[in-house]
């Protein structure tokens, strides 16, 4: 008999609409209850939303599975049910083995405590025993490279040191099943790369991993199989490259003429953010992914709404292809450009000369942040950017397989 590591059957989770917004107060509950008794008012009808609906899947031991989907598709809800943080409304899950859950970096950290104390505390919170933490303590500290600051309270750590230590504790979590949510979306590029490497080790280590991410590159690098969630249901479950292709193609198709609101592509709604992207347009086109010719000049216009004064903020643009590979990253400080804007509406124009992309469909990620080490103000993911077609004037053989991402102009001669 074979056993699955995870078996989820018809999982559903229902939230009351707006449940997270205002807190109830005892005073109000008592007074409205009283009024209702006196005047026989009907209680207001509650509206419910299904964050997850009839989700079933099985994961074999040692399998590494990606979970992708838009903001609000139910990915995090699924992880929270699997990790028992929240209860399902319906359905059943069977898990074999200890479950470790990494929903954020630094779970259980307390700023007043020292690095050493936090390693123990965070380890215990994540489910390690004291003996296990003690055994792996040196490894954890070595990976984080904070040896000389072990007895300093973490509130004095730089954000980079803090992240390294926090991730390192999490990365040494030794459970049979590991649930990971987007923890790689923090830190500088070098650290992200090391985290990815460590995650790769974990994935190859024979453990069962469920990995939620918006980063299609990371998902395709780490997983063989991916679940694609949309509006709380699994729309596709299969080999990662196929599922990622479908996911990106979907956002392109759906954008089409109707055009999805920009909030659909936003990674998360952050009410404190000083700036939001309100529109992304290419050239003079007002919506949808326009068709452009390879080798052309491309102008991307970002409509921004600034709520609080920005000074020295960076804009990062990442262009991706249908496989989720990053084709290029355009980082505004590289071109001596930063955002210094007063509150109000603004338009930022970026001109890319000589767009040397191979024919195909391309997507854009936009990030606005103060520095690469701090949390981004605004992140837009997988916005359908352009459909690039070959320029007939330049290319003779149009319908060939391109097998590449770039087209260079070349000169031939015989020497």
């Amino acid at each position, binding site marked *: *008999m*074979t*056993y*699955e*590591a995870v078996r989820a059957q018809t999982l559903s989770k229902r*939230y009351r609409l707006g*449940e*997270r917004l205002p*807190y*109830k*107060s*005892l*005073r109000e*509950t008592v007074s409205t209850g009283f009024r209702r008794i006196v005047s026989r008012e009907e209680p207001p009808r509650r509206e419910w939303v299904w964050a997850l609906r009839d989700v079933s899947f099985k994961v*074999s*031991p040692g399998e590494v599975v990606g979970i992708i989907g838009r903001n609000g598709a139910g990915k995090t809800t699924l992880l*929270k*049910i*699997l*990790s*028992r*943080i*929240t*209860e*399902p*409304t*319906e*359905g*059943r*899950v*069977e*898990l*074999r*083995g*200890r*479950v470790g*859950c990494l*929903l*954020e970096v630094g*779970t*259980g950290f*307390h700023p*007043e*405590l020292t690095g050493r*104390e936090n390693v*123990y*505390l965070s380890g*215990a*919170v*994540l*489910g390690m*025993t*004291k003996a296990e933490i003690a055994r792996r303590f040196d490894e954890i500290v070595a990976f984080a490279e904070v040896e000389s600051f072990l007895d300093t309270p973490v509130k004095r750590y730089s954000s980079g040191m803090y992240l390294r230590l926090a991730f390192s504790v999490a990365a040494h979590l030794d459970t*049979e099943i590991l649930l990971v949510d987007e923890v790689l979306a923090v830190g500088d590029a070098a650290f992200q790369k090391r985290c990815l490497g460590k995650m790769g080790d974990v994935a190859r280590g024979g453990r069962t991993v469920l990995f939620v991410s918006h980063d299609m590159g990371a998902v395709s690098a780490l997983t063989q199989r991916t679940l694609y969630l949309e509006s709380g249901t699994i729309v596709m479950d299969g080999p990662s490259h196929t599922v990622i292709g479908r996911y990106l193609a979907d956002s392109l198709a759906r954008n089409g003429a109707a055009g999805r609101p920009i909030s659909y592509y936003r990674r998360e709604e952050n009410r404190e953010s000083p700036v939001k992207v309100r529109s992304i347009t290419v050239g003079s086109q007002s919506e949808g992914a326009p068709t452009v010719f390879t080798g052309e000049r491309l102008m991307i216009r970002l409509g921004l709404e600034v709520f609080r004064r920005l000074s020295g903020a960076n804009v990062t643009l990442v262009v991706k292809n249908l496989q989720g590979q990053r084709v290029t990253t355009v980082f505004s400080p590289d071109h001596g450009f930063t955002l210094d804007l007063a509150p109000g509406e603004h338009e930022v124009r970026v001109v890319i000369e000589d767009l040397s992309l191979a024919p195909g469909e391309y997507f854009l990620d936009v990030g606005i942040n103060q520095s690469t080490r701090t949390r981004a103000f605004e992140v837009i993911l997988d916005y359908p950017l352009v459909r690039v077609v070959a320029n007939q004037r330049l290319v003779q053989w149009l319908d060939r397989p391109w097998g590449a991402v770039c087209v260079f102009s070349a000169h031939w001669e015989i020497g």
Partner: protein
Amino acid sequence: MPGHGIAAQKLIVIEPSSRWRGPAWEELWSYRELLLFFIWRDIKVRYKQTVLGAAWAILQPVLAMVIFTIFFGHMARVPSNGLPYPLFSYAGLLVWTFFAQATGQAAQSLVGSAQLITKVFFPRALVPTAAVMGGLVDLAVASPLILLLMARYGVWPGWHVLFAPVYVLLAVATAEGVGLWLSALNVEYRDVRYLVPFLIQLWLFVTPVIYPASLALPMLKRVGVPGWVLGLNPMVGVVEGFRAAVLGTTGAPADLLLASTLSAAAILISGTYYFRSVARSFADVV
């Protein structure tokens, strides 16, 4: 061979739980190490954040004792069972301060741990329990001072001092029960936070900390209410019992102590059930 060896792994089943469910003792026991970590963290942070550190644990009941002695002992001449008033009030304040601190901390604990509760699973009851147990450490720090006071006034404990831990246990049960109720209510209703200090203050006045229960009993008798009714406030049994055990005063009547014990048990059991019925949705509400 796929799945080989995994059969031996413990099976965890996640299902919607029924609303009325008692505590999962087995699960709580398996998380005992985390409970110790939480207690350790709370104490460490509390002592680090206050200028006076651990001295604060002694200073609080001592200052209250000094003020009570001046106003109630000297000015109002509140009787104190024939004992010097400072000793009388400090004995009561020891267990009372534990209860007030433990309950207050426990009531805030869940909301204060919102960040943790939404990011990782553990039995939620660990959080208020750790707050209550942390109060015991403060009690232990403040306790030796009563021996000094007893030596100063020439009062020697008898064999019944052996019962003192029983009353501390009763105080722990009461604080845990009230703490479970308040912490869970606090998640659902955010104005509970403002009610807690007020509630504890009122509770002090209906508990014989400042005055002896022997002052209130005759009044009850006059209106025809049996004395054990006072014991429905479990802290009456705790304070009277603890004082009798340590200082050797005439103890509280047995029926009053019984009423306190049963009342504490009722609060604890109902608190556990209420907490469990609400705990399943904490992460959605916090």
